[in-house]
């Protein structure tokens, strides 16, 4: 951890393990429909200010490029930034333990309730709200980058290729990333 301090762009205060566990336990139980990144942004960045926008975004990008659930990957990185190895373990365990219990409870209850068609409708409604949360997070982050045309174009191209045309994500990101990083380098000077 020593190498993180002093040189950091935004100094990251070390958080207590209990606070980290509590925050990510909540996060795990709240993330319906794969909206973990949206919730993490709201709870950890906006509400608690534990990490800043740029740290969140670079973490989110890496999380999607690496194998595994992007929500878990983002959580491991944020836990690591907050309190090293212990933070990563606490955040990861906290994130998964709630859903682990819920999914097993649901499986036990489902056998009796599966004939009720309203159940499926209710789940569709919850999913729609969860998707809205994901969109709102993405749009907020676009606004944050509206200072120049380049980043906006990069975002649009990414949405078009991956979301609309359904091209495989890895090659798309490998093509767009050098251009985007180049743009960042040029605009810096």
């Amino acid at each position, binding site marked *: 951890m020593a190498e993180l301090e002093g040189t950091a762009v935004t100094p990251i205060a070390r958080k207590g393990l209990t606070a980290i566990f509590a925050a990510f336990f909540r996060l795990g139980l709240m993330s319906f429909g794969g909206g973990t990144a949206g919730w993490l942004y709201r709870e950890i960045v906006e509400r608690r200010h534990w990490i800043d926008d740029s740290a969140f975004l670079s973490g989110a990008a890496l999380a999607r490029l690496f194998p595994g659930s992007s929500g878990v990957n983002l959580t491991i990185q944020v836990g690591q930034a907050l309190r090293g190895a212990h933070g990563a373990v606490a955040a990861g365990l906290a994130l998964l333990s709630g859903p682990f219990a819920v999914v097993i409870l*649901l499986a036990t209850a489902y056998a009796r309730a599966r004939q009720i068609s309203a159940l499926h409708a209710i789940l569709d409604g919850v*999913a729609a709200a969860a998707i809205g949360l994901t969109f709102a997070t993405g749009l907020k982050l676009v606004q944050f980058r509206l200072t120049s045309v380049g980043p906006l174009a990069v975002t649009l191209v990414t949405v078009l290729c991956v979301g609309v045309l359904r091209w495989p994500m890895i090659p798309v990101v490998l093509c767009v990333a050098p251009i985007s990083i180049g743009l960042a380098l040029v605009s810096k000077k």
Partner: protein
Amino acid sequence: MLDDIRTLLALTLVFAPLSLLSIGGGAALLAEIEHQSVSVHAWTTQREFADLFAISRAAPGPGTMLSTLIGWKVAGLPGALTATVALYLPSSLLVYGAARLWGRWRGSVWHTVVERGLAPIAAGLILAGGIAVLRVSPGGPAVWAAAIASTALILCWPRLHPLALFAAGGGLFGLADAVGLW
């Protein structure tokens, strides 16, 4: 006893490699999990697999809890724990290593530039992720409309608690179903 251990080992051998192969989301992984659990190991029937999949989507969680359910079905609580750890531990170790390396260069010029370059891509991937989930949702146009409405609600009213929104969405759809709207 020996059989139990053999089952747990088999669960590990199926899910741990998949952990490192699940790049870019669940679609490819899902097909392989289905193949392994139904055809190769006969852990579930086709019907049971479909049910477990539905449950895993209904539950909260950062990713698929499908492996957890298959482990639970095959070997109870030890099976559920084994399958969950096997699916999440290898990829978590990998990303932890990457995060450590990345943190070491914090503050250097190229760290800042790469971070700023990746930001608009991450925003695009988050939006694309929302579109991908909408696409596989069985709810049709009503879900699209509700998703757009809830996006607008959150953007216009940032203090709105997402759980209230989830409850409203679930309640509205449940009501519409009860009334027989669709």
